[in-house]
């Protein structure tokens, strides 16, 4: 996927003035947060399971080479193939050559964020193979020719009315505003596609080293039809999807759906192991795992290794005040929200994704709800520091930080100056109690008034109260 992350400021500005987007996003902050809370509270072991899930992934990453080797061996034992791909370009070529081996005309697709990352749809189209997204959300945005705006709810930015318009235009059926009717319409439209497709492509939530299995977790059943009916099943997976055993996967499953949608368990958790057996009446004749690095191994052994624990549940964006305000498209790349702000700079380079780690209030809710306890604010701070060190921030910002740093290192000067500034602002604004505008503060005052300081500084109050809070 082509990034527009460098345009975050413009993207966010547009998003804030998009009334339909505001309507669509209004449910995100309520629904997801409440449902996760209820699901977590209903399982007494939830926090223990989170701790264990973190440990499982940490252990797994520390022996990733052994797990990858065993996984490959087991896939081959079960009649499948593993294709190692260093980057997106290699992965695209691999998928294309598998599709060409059976002269594929159409390919059905289950939801895959890695598929977005490597831009597989556009590439197949350019090579005269038609990819058909089958997850309802992905299907909607494919009709709209847009990228997903959320990692588990790709069309969350669309209102029902916008979806009704899209379906009317593409399905050539009378417009309906009934949710059930719209779902039934998509179900009927996609039915034949499953049977006609030569190849089915899915992602993977897990790769299990024990048996060489790939696992998808879905609610709609489209992923299963996608991978069961065509003669070839291609799995797109990045190397960090590995878990050692089924016991380990069970632990992570117990926190995955609860964190994502607030379900106890998603409807379909499907464990695929190899190709159709000789005696099987259905299932794909070929099973290919496209094992993609795409920047992952470079994160190992660095402060970014924690990011490789991510299980793509979306809890961080569901709880993010910035995401609630601007939605996913503003981030301009595959992964929006806090995980995107931490991960996209690693995938795109910090110069391209400079704004994303700054698109945070550092409220810390993302880390609080992350089932894998990824220190997202810490990683965003890491990128801010990197951007400063690399000298890629705008001059004004750099100078301001330098100026502040100078005072922060000289406490006496700092206090003198803040005292003077507070006194001056108090003297100027006390009568009205607030400022409608102030030099250098238009970013704040354009949207709301700035309350006038009361005159004293925090340090002065602290000294006066000698640390007492009352």
């Amino acid at each position: 996927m082509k990034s527009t992350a460098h345009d975050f400021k413009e993207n966010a500005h547009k998003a804030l003035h998009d009334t339909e987007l505001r309507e669509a996003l209004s449910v995100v902050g309520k629904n997801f947060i409440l449902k996760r809370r209820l699901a977590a509270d209903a399982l007494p072991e939830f926090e223990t399971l989170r701790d264990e899930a973190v440990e499982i992934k940490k252990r797994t990453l520390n022996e990733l080479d052994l797990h990858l080797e065993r996984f490959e061996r087991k896939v081959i034992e079960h009649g499948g193939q593993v294709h190692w791909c260093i980057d997106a370009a290699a992965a695209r070529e691999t998928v294309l050559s598998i599709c060409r081996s059976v002269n594929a005309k159409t390919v059905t697709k289950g939801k895959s964020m890695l598929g977005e990352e490597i831009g597989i749809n556009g590439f197949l189209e350019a090579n005269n193979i038609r990819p058909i997204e089958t997850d309802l959300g992905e299907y909607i945005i494919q009709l709209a020719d847009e990228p997903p705006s959320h990692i588990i709810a790709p069309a969350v930015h669309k209102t029902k009315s916008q979806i009704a318009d899209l379906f009317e235009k593409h399905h050539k059926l009378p417009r309906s505003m009934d949710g059930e009717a719209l779902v039934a319409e998509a179900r009927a439209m996609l039915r034949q596609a499953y049977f006609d497709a030569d190849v089915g492509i899915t992602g993977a939530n897990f790769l299990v080293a024990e048996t060489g299995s790939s696992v998808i977790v879905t609610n709609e059943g489209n992923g299963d039809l996608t991978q069961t009916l065509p003669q070839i099943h291609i799995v797109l997976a990045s190397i960090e999807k590995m878990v050692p055993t089924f016991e380990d996967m069970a632990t992570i499953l117990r926190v995955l759906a609860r964190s994502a949608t607030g379900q106890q368990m998603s409807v379909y958790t499907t464990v695929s192991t190899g190709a159709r057996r000789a005696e099987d009446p259905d299932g794909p004749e070929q099973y290919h795992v496209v094992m993609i690095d795409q920047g992952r191994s470079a994160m190992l052994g660095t402060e970014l290794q924690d990011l490789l624990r991510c299980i793509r549940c979306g809890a961080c964006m569901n709880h993010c005040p910035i995401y609630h305000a601007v939605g996913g498209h503003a981030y301009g790349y595959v992964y929006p929200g806090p995980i995107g702000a931490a991960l996209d700079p690693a995938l795109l380079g910090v110069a391209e994704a400079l704004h994303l780690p700054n698109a945070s209030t550092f409220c810390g809710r993302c880390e609080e709800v992350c089932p894998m306890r990824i220190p997202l604010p810490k990683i965003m701070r890491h990128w801010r520091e990197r951007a400063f060190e690399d000298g890629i921030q705008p001059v004004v910002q750099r100078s301001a930080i330098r100026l502040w740093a100078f005072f922060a290192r000289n406490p006496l000067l700092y206090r003198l100056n803040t005292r003077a500034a507070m006194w001056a602002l108090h003297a100027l604004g006390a009568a009205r109690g607030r400022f409608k505008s102030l030099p250098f503060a238009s970013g704040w005052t354009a949207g709301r008034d700035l309350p006038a300081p009361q005159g004293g500084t925090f340090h002065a109050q602290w000294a006066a109260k000698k640390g007492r809070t009352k």
Partner: protein
Amino acid sequence: MSARDRILGNVRSALGRAEPDDKTRAAYDARFDAHTRNTVPARASVPHAALIERFIAEAHLVGATTARLDRLDDVPAAVASYLRDKNLPARIRVAPALQSMSWGEQPVEVGYGKAEPSDTATLTRALAGVAETGTLLLTSGPQTPTTLNFLPDANLVVLTETDIVGAYEDGWDRVRALGATPRAVNFVTGPSRTADIAQELILGAHGPIDLHILVLKN
């Protein structure tokens, strides 16, 4: 250098690990025999009678329906009345695992094997039911084709009470007991659903709209 060697090499050098020798590899593989469990929720470790009740209650919570029957011979009548009540066509595609069952005078057209595009209802047999979340374990194979689980509007599943277990781990032990790992193992928790249209939960996205579990005493 192959992409495989490059990726494994990158991983090893990032982690500061040497290429493992045969002894390390053997010790690593041996760990997989232990089937060590992490924390299993307490709700999965209750007496069997309570597990059955939990399974049924959880299945209902996720929108599945259930019927409790004494034995396999009661299944055809239960299927016939279900199809009638749901106003579905009186025909069903049945898993070969249930071929020995006699349909007698039941007014239902019965076919066996994998699901066909025109099938509106299917009947299959579960390897196990997991009580902790009302989850069915369905395995692929000549006796229980996978398409039966996904293609129809209504999926009916026979589950024996003795096959109801507490946790996912218990369910997976049943899979291991089969010997070879089947091509597909499906954990199914309720009928298909989506919330992709403005966050409204709607049942029956691409998989079955109805999931009906026939719980057998014997």
